[in-house]
């Protein structure tokens, strides 16, 4: 049972436009969620997180929205830049107080110049 799902394996967006990456989850007990970005041949780097008590968190061009009733979160990148081309993973701690994460399968974003 996949508790964190990213149903879109890939997404292409024109430079300057908005990129929206989606993530669905099944466990309503998750305390917070994270997004990681991964370039080829590099490890994932932490991008942004959101607590389950919030519905929005913003950091520069990156905003994460959380819809608890729909068990859905999304990452918005505005404006998209070619350097944003990477694989994006959403993740959540497996249970409260644990350091173990469960990751989605990732969405490959390609920003076209």
């Amino acid at each position, binding site marked *: 049972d996949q508790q964190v799902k990213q149903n879109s394996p890939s997404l292409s967006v024109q430079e300057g436009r908005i990129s929206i990456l989606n993530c669905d989850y099944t466990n309503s007990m998750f305390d917070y969620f994270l997004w990681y970005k991964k370039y080829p041949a590099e490890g994932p780097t932490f991008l942004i997180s959101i607590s389950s008590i919030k519905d929005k968190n913003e950091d520069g061009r990156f905003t994460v929205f959380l819809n608890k009733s729909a068990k859905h979160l999304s990452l918005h990148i505005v404006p998209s830049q070619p350097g944003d081309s990477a694989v994006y993973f959403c993740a959540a701690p497996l249970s409260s107080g644990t350091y173990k994460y469960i990751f989605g399968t*990732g969405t490959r974003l390609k920003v076209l110049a």
Partner: protein
Amino acid sequence: DVKVTQSSRYLVKRTGEKVFLECVQDMDHENMFWYRQDPGLGLRLIYFSYDVKMKEKGDIPEGYSVSREKKERFSLILESASTNQTSMYLCASIGGNQPQHFGDGTRLSIL
């Protein structure tokens, strides 16, 4: 700034070989992890360790073992490498209120 260092970026081994992947972190973190990343499957947890000499199986431990003799070092061992273990291997550590911090990964090819 947290630094997680994986000893090799690229590694090529033959089937049946015993393979060691090394990971070192410099932040005195108690918790360390080994993942593998495969296309369409995301990051899957192989093993994790929450203290020296302590370990727990993750989701896909078969064919792997680990060693944590010192706090800063977490080793992943492929007992007898097989071609289906060709993958990108990622080590991570975590401590305090920080998110998991990853190394740059080891791209392992088993021929």
